[in-house]
């Protein structure tokens, strides 16, 4: 049991969508760095990969949402509501 084995506990449990975009990107960077650590333990792999996937999805959603939001407004306006 290496000290890395505890990585799983270090992975943030905060819902990705509750993080600011910048914080989410920062955490994604941190998770990817840990995944490339040569001492990576198998027990952490699934958790880290899954967290990275969640973070990527969250950031992608929000980046797309910035435009989408405006489009929604325009839609509202055009429909006369």
């Amino acid at each position: 049991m290496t000290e890395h084995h505890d990585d799983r506990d270090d992975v943030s449990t905060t819902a990705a969508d509750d993080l600011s975009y910048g914080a989410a990107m920062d955490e994604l960077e941190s998770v990817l760095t840990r995944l490339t650590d040569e001492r990576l333990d198998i027990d952490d792999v699934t958790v880290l990969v899954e967290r990275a996937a969640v973070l990527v999805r969250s950031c992608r959603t929000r980046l797309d949402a910035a435009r989408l939001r405006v489009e929604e407004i325009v839609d509202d306006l055009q429909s006369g509501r």
Partner: protein
Amino acid sequence: MPTRRKRDPIQTAPIDPGGERPSTVAPLWRYLADVEAAALVCDEHAEVQWSSPSVHEVLGVRPDELHGLPLTDLFAETAQPHIADRVRLAQQGSTQRTPISASLAIDHAGAASFDVDIVAFPTDGRRLLLVTLRDASSRLAAGRALAESETRFRNVVNNVPYGIGIEDQDGNFVFLNARFKEMLGVQANYILRDEVADLMDLAEVNDRRGGLQRDDEPIDDITVRFTPEGETRFGLVTLLPQEGAGGESSTFWAVADVTARVRAEQDQARLHRLMETSSDLVLVMTHRSVPLYANRAARNFFGIPLDATLDGEAEAIEFGTVGAAQVEEIAESLRDGRIWEGELLLLGYDGLEPFSATLVPDTSGHRVLRYSAVLRNIGERKAFEQRLEWEARHDPLTQLANRLLLGERLDRALATAGPDQHVAVVFLDLDNFRMINESLGHRRGDRLLLQTARTLEELVGNEGVVARFGADEFVVMVDRVRSEESAAELAEGLRQAVSGRVELPEVDLLMSCTAGVAISDGADVDSASIIRDANAAVHEAKLRGRDRTEVFSSAVRQRALDRVTVESGLRGALRSSEFRLFYQPKVDLDSGRLAGAEALIRWQQPGGPLVGPDEFVPIAESSGLIVPIGEWVIREACSTLRSWTEQLGDDRPLHMAINLSGRQLARPTIATELRSLLEESGVDPTVIEFEITESVLLDDVERSIRNLGQIKDLGVRLALDDFGTGYSSLTYLRRYPIDVIKIDRSFVSGIGSDPENAAIVRSVVELAQALGLSCVAEGVETAGDLAAIRALGCDVAQGYLIAKPLSDGDAMRLLGYDPRY
């Protein structure tokens, strides 16, 4: 990535656009106020009438600075035609949504480039334009950064030293990284559920995730066997179940290829099993011989409990009586890091035992940290060798010495015998043992042999050696015998001891035994020759009627040599046509005419005398040569009889008597063989009479009755020869299918002047008459004999008075004369 600038105080309150604000715009305020985009409302002339508060934040200008500004003027010259086009399209009702990327013409503190959207919307009967500007550079930068992260994520996932897969809720693998694909030997980026079972053994996985499992809680340490084509690999799997937002579940797989480790563990387990089942003692010990590991054999030998933990705190192993010099030699070898091999005496439960030892040190510098020992108990091997050695020299049934050991002991006794000391060898043969074995069973036969062995051992004690030589043959060697007489007494004593009544399970036997004894005569004699002499003596004793002791002498030796010579001669006699048949006529006392003859064999060697049957038939019997000789006799006698009949005519029925030996009668196929011979000869079986002696019938009564019955069925007559000389018994006469009794010549010869013989013959004749048998008197030599037997009621006479045995020609001539008696 976009970063929100510090909000200007001006933004803390709604900004009055400073112009006419369309009433319908007001509801938009709440949307637009918090949008990270600048929003402008233009009139039908595309001039800015209203600006959102975020204008200040996004563009770095105050909202009132834009009031009344033609929209196109807001943008750089290169973008103006596009903006104008988009305005026109919007006013025409187009819903074109692709933003125009444009930079601004005015001084501003915002981004270099913006995404511009223009849409028209009707309000209060007017058609106004809503224009939004978003910082394109920051969005693009953020997008690029995210894309880079995504790419990196994909690369990382493909390059981690583990297989990674995502299994959907239906069991399909919808994602596999490169490593996982490599482990499974697949190329595809997904694997359907049906294919998964062919590639891996999911039993344990399904078992482990069968229970309730909380999402996000990994299931780890599952060893899964992968079966890519042609090989088996092992993966250590960690699973992470996931519940998606839409309720669908999936499982993240992380797999480490542990094939090498599992194989090593399997090898190690095999090695461990091997060590634990080995009969060799295997130990790992500290330099003070405190065991750190001891296999089962070692634990058993040294009394270490099988469940004891060996943590270096146990008692040191005691190596019994290892001498000081040996201890130093071992210590020096180990200190030098050299393997020590040699023999050690170890103290086990059964005392000191010899071991071959291999000691392997683990040293650091000249310090022995610990050492391993492999110890093989060579005591067992030595005991086994001794056992084999013992078995090679002993009879397995009686545990007596066998030929080999007897020969060795005899040689030693002969070599060490003093000038006045003799070594005696007694050969003992149990009479009729074969019959006992066959009729009472081998179990009783073995019991008899064991009892005989024990009896002989008790009698001989330490004075000599008792050996079992063959099935029913025992040989006793006794050294320091004073004389031939004392040797003979010894032999007779042994013979008597094993004779007499013997109790076996459910049956008592009256045993007899035949013995032969030979002694060393001081001359150069070896074990083989003295045993051979004793054997010759027992053979002689058997010929003389068994149940007796014979001492070997030069005469015995001569007879033994003669036997060998005769047997050798007999082997060639048939081939060389050296046998002759002679025929002794018989008289039918009723008619007084010759009624036939008995065929009698003689052996005529070239240049030698005519030899009678007494001198060679017993040897032909013991060697088995009697069988082919007997066949020749039957063929020859039948041929002669046919010749006589042809010459004398059918009106004169003649009989031919032919002797059958015990060896012939014992053959299971004898009846068949006789039938073929008779058929071959063309002689009517009813004129043939086979003669057998009483002693022949004693060997195996049941078989004799069976065979005689089958022979009788051929149509021939059966005669009991030499009646009165053996174990004459009424039982035989009653049980055997006999037609004729031949009274032995010893009762007949001189009967006219011997009232006792006359009484015996009368009894026999009366007996025969009572049983319906006919009676032949042998040895009729005088007219007085003939008159007497005729008076006593005998049916047939045979003897020198009538004729001695004649050649076939002479016999034929005599028959032709047809004399009357």
